[in-house]
Structures are given as C-alpha cells and as structure tokens.
C-alpha cells in the first residue's frame, strides 16, 4: 500500500503544526513560522521553474501525481493558516476587551456604597 507514507507524513505535519501553534507563542514560534514561510516560498519558486519537481516529490512519498501532492500540501497549509489566524484573532479580542472594560469602568467611576437613602440621591439625576 503506497499511500501509507503520505498519510503518515501529512498527519505528522498537521499534528506538529497544531502543537507548535497551540503551545508557546514566543520568539521561537515566530521564527519557526517565518523560516517555514521562507522555505515554502523557495519551494514555490523552484516548482514554478521546474514543475516536474512536484512529480518527483510525489514519487518519493508515494503519491500518484504531482498535482495531488500540491493539493495535499495546500490543505495542510490552509489548515495551519486558519488555526494561526483564529488564535491571533482570539489574542487580539482578549486585548481589546481588556481595553474597553478599563475604559468603561473608568468612565463610570467607583461604586460608592449608597449611604442613607440611595433612591433619593439617584432621583434628581434621573429626572434631568
């Protein structure tokens, strides 16, 4: 069964990317991501100049045609892109939530405990 190798490779890549992206988001992760991107670009250029390179890669890992190989690679790339974007979006959302909350709380002022009869204190403000 020839397809087993590509299946193994793809699954490994998917899991590795996911683990990579889910764990630390420090300088190293970013560096790895950028290296990956550079590698991807280099490969893209290479395959534009020599389209047959995909066929060779496909043969090595056991896929029938180079076009299939490109499709698989794209699926992996797209999934990892979706995940990164989602996580970055979540980070961003958490940050602006904090900012908006700080603004809202500062604007409303502190919750002074009502002394005596709070309802009457609120009334003139409410009437205006």
């Amino acid at each position, binding site marked *: 069964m020839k397809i087993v190798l590509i299946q193994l490779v793809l699954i490994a890549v998917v899991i590795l990317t996911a683990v990579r992206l889910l764990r630390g988001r420090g300088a190293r992760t970013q560096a790895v991501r950028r290296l990956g991107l550079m590698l991807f670009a280099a490969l893209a250029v290479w395959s534009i100049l020599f389209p047959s390179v995909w066929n060779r890669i496909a043969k090595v890992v056991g896929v029938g045609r180079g076009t299939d190989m490109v499709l698989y690679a794209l699926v992996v790339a797209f999934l990892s892109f979706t995940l990164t974007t*989602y996580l970055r979006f979540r980070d961003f*959302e*958490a940050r*602006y*939530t904090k900012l*908006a*909350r700080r*603004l*809202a*709380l500062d*604007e*409303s002022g*502190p*919750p*002074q*405990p*009502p002394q005596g009869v*709070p*309802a009457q204190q*609120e*009334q003139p*403000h*409410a009437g205006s």
Partner: protein
Amino acid sequence: MNDTWVVIPVYNEEQVIGDVVAQVHTAFEQVVCVDDGSSDRSGDAAARAGARVVRHPINLGQGAALQTGFEYALADPSMKYVLTFDGDGQHQIADALGMVDRLRAGEADVVFGSRFLDERSKPTFGKKMVLRAAVGYTNITTHTRLTDAHNGLRAISRPVLEQIKITQNRMAHASELVAQIGAAKATYVEHPVHILYSDYSKAKGQSLWNSINILADLILR
C-alpha cells in the same frame, strides 16, 4: 441589603430594561447595568430607572459584560454577594431573593438558578433539548452536577467571584463560569427558578443554531 450587587448585562433592551431595573430595585438597592455597546438608548433607560450604568464603548458580548459587572462590584469593598440577572425580564425577583438568602444562610458559595427543577418554566421542545445537551456537555467537562447551565440567574459570594475571570466574550461564558467555579472548589446548590418566556424574551433569546457556535467556542479554547 447593601452587601449585594445585582449585575444586569444589557444589549439593546431599551423597551424593557427600565421596568426590569425598577422591579429589581424593589428588592435590591444596588443595581449595575452593563450596557454592552447597545445601539439604542438602553443605557439611558437603565440610568433613568435608577441603576448604575457601565457602558462598553463597543459591543463585546454577554460574557464580557458580566465580567465587567463583576469587576465593578468587586471595587465596592462592602460587597459580599453578586447576583446576575438577565435584562430581558425573564427572571423573577422572588427567585433572586431566595437565592441570595441561601447564600446568606451559608448554604453554599454559589447558587445557580435552574428552570428544570420544577414544572413552572415552559421552554419549547427544541430549546429544552439544546439546554439539556449543553448542561450535559458542561457536566462532563467540568465535573459538576447541574441541571441547567445556561441560566442567567446566579448568586455568587465574594471569595468565589474574586477567582472568576471570564474570557469567553460570547455565550460560551456560561459553561466557562461553571468550570471556574468548579475549579475554585466552591460549594454550589441549585435553586428552582421560573423563566417567563414572553414574546419579547423569545424574540431576543438565543437561536438554537447558536448552540453550535457555543460548542465551537468551547472546543477551540
């Protein structure tokens, strides 16, 4: 009852929020409405009814509004209990009072409202199924035993509140809240509450489709 703050998240409830606040005021002195960036004049209506209003500059979601309300209440050193209450008028004051009384009696650290402990609430069949599934998921993932995890009526005591940090801005916060209360090893009880499904609250309520979004939010934490 100056030791209790009622937190009401409000998003576009201009029609009813005034009445809701007035009603809550009959039993609780301290009410804070978190206006979650409403596009109508909900915040003004709440303020006119006598509530303190904290205004989110932009819409962030109900979970974020609750967390803002919690932080507001925590800034009051004399606060001992917080009650969360929905802004659409589906909750009953008597239930709320009963829940705070149980906290005060020292029965537990947290009292959750549940619409499934008696037969008063009449959710539609679809809603019932989704809520059952939601609480099942919450129970499995948080090691708690509840009958209704997505009920907006909750009473929480200060020490527990201090440990709560809601990060789920949208509706998944209900499960997150339960998870954090479970992780804080707080004691909890459920209190039977009556959810009044008015035409208004039905129109405003969660679409059943949203349960899928909630699940996705929880899984992709």
